């Protein structure tokens, strides 16, 4: 164990602070906390900021220079310093959207040289925004049963079918999509991972209103959509393997401990600032105990993440420790939102543009949104299957004939 700042890291921290001092005014004005409420009206500002961060290596830090990244060696302490300093300055960090966090690592692992050259640079600069075409109305937890078909036609596939829960499809430039291209192969071996533009003829996007009141995901319909076979990533029929590597990145993103820390600190501020019968809520031992319980959990997740990153750096394979992050992190975030709401009491149920509203209504919006994240990206129950079967080696559920 060695968690000390060395001279190199002290200097790096200074460098980040200096950068923030000089450039803070260029950052999109809203914090990540309320950002989720109105995700897209800041696109221009976000793009400029994102580009600046890429140039300085404060995001996409380890992406090779050849593909537009900063090309730095992995250094978890530096990543942590960046996160801490941005957080302390209340400035939003680099974006963590599906293109950057899921597609880019997948291309680095499975893409052709041409695909890497073409997509990674504009994606990390937020010049191309991606959506993920995985789930279908009849293929949710049983994702491999998906039916969207790609039929060979010369050098192309003709794609027909429907996707659902497609976050950001209404604003995305591109989609990475799972398509059944080998109908006669066993279900896990007949899928291809294909990337194509969302303005290809034959694609229709219908927004789905969510319980938060904002449309954040969509249904996407494909009618005779013509896509070159060259757009397959990782080989025909190999999409299940490629998709699983993407899901691995998504689950890391969904359990991000910095997000939990951000929530925790906000809950702490609420406890100190909000009062009941004239007394700050922090004086109430019951609320205080709930807070400290969650504080210990956040601390555990942050330290656990450091342990996992250290293990990965030493070349230890992905194991049980990584599998639990999505399950625990999403549950923790939901509990933090719930505590925030409870601290606020009746004020906590105010919404929209109501008087006395706190934080733009973000507590309720996040409470609902984070429940969505417990379900999305592989439900909590699917995570428990993965943890028990792959992590603990427990026997699999017997297959039902024909499924």
């Amino acid at each position: 164990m060695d968690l000390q700042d060395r001279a190199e890291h002290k200097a790096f921290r200074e460098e980040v602070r200096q950068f923030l001092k000089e450039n803070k005014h260029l950052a999109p004005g809203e914090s990540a906390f309320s950002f989720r409420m109105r995700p897209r009206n800041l696109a221009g500002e976000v793009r400029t900021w994102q580009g600046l961060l890429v140039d300085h290596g404060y995001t996409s830090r380890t992406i090779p220079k050849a593909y537009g990244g900063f090309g730095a060696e992995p250094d978890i302490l530096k990543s942590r310093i960046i996160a801490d300093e941005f957080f302390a300055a209340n400035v939003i960090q680099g974006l963590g959207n599906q293109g950057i966090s899921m597609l880019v690592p997948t291309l680095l692992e499975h893409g052709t040289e041409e695909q890497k050259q073409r997509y990674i640079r504009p994606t990390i600069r937020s010049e191309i925004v991606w959506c993920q075409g995985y789930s279908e109305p009849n293929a949710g937890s049983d994702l491999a049963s998906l039916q969207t078909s790609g039929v060979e036609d010369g050098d192309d596939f003709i794609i027909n079918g429907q996707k659902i829960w497609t976050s950001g499809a209404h604003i995305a430039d591109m989609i990475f999509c799972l398509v059944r291209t080998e109908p006669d192969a066993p279900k896990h071996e007949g899928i291809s991972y294909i990337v194509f533009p969302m303005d290809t003829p034959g694609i229709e996007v219908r927004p789905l209103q969510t319980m938060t009141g904002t449309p954040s995901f969509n249904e996407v319909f494909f009618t005779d959509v013509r896509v070159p076979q060259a757009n397959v990533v990782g080989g025909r029929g190999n999409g299940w393997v490629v998709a699983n590597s993407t899901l691995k990145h998504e689950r890391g993103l969904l359990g991000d401990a910095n997000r939990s820390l951000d929530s925790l600190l906000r809950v702490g501020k609420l406890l100190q600032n909000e009062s009941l019968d004239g007394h700050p809520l922090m004086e109430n031992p019951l609320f205080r105990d709930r807070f400290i319980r969650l504080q210990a959990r956040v601390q555990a997740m942050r330290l656990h993440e450091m342990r996992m990153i250290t293990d990965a750096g030493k070349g230890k394979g992905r194991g049980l420790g990584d599998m639990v992050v999505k399950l625990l992190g999403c549950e923790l975030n939901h509990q933090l939102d719930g505590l925030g709401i409870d601290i606020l009491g009746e004020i906590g149920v105010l919404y929209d543009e109501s008087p006395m509203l706190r934080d733009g209504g973000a507590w309720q919006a996040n409470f609902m949104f984070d429940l969505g994240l417990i379900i999305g990206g592989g439900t909590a129950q699917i995570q428990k299957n993965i943890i028990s079967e792959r992590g603990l080696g427990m026997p699999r559920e017997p297959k039902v004939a024909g499924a």
Partner: protein
Amino acid sequence: MDFGLSEEQELIRDSFQGSLSRLAELDTVRRTAEAGAALDEDIWAELCGLGMAGLLIGEDYGGAGLGLLEAAVVAEELGRRVVPVPFVASAVMAPLAIRLGGDEDQCRAWLPAMADGSLRVGVAVSESAAGAREDAGVTAENGVLSGRALFVLDGVGAEGFVVADNAGGLHLVRADAAGLDRVGLKTIDRTRAVSELRFENTPADPLRQGEGVLRSVIDAGRVILAADSLGAGEEMLRQAVDYAGERKQFGRAIGSFQAVKHMCAEMASELQPCRALVWYGAYAMEHEPAQFSLAAAFAKSHVDEVGRFVARTATEVHGGMGFTDLMGLHYWFKRLGVNRAYLGSPERVRDEAARLQGFAA
């Protein structure tokens, strides 16, 4: 940054794991526990041969001069095997108290014999760490102690004690001191001993420093109990997974039912991050001292909660067998129950964590 064990620390873990798998089989543990001994002299002697008793004692006094992280690594293995030897007080808290608070004479008089395992020392700090029950409390005046100290850790077979007084001062007391009475207390956990000490003008040798040392000694004890619980919890999960893989009902292994495998997944999920919390708590003592008390509080209170969940859930996975003495799972269940109560319950420790951060007066 490196958040992991060094090769040397992994070596210590492996050597204790190897020895304990041979020394502390369930039958051996059971024999000791049923005899009411709470201490297996053979295991104690072998582990002292590996340097267990002197882990935290400096090389000048015959110890290994290692840190709390190494002690936590060992504690995890002791918990995993519910080993009936004194460790938290005798090998961690008492040596630390003397190392941090003792003068040269006191160190020389006590530490060398402690390092080789020939002198076992109990620790009486429950009133400071967990709060005073009944009329417990010890006053120090003119070099003598009076009063009662409850839940003295590793007190059975001890030839000396480190005792905290009501004002936060620490004292060294020989077991044969005049006016000292020792009463054994029986708990659910027969693998370790606690006792009550009664003092009546008992001569004691005060340690040079008081308050700050007591704080560190309690924090270190909390980290070690959390490490012990982590090992015990992991072993309960392992046994539950094994059992669920073997036991068949409705024509299939019960571990293939989601109702059962999800219980195991939940245990694994809760246990996984505990290791980082324990390691950081131990690391903080030397390397991030300003964070030590809080880190120890988080480790103790969180692992206590996870320990309770795992203890009941793993037992439940075993069905009726889990409830029997034959299966022996109850040794771990009880060890976890006791670790939770000692040196501050989770509620007490979280309240301290709030105070440490200025959230409460």
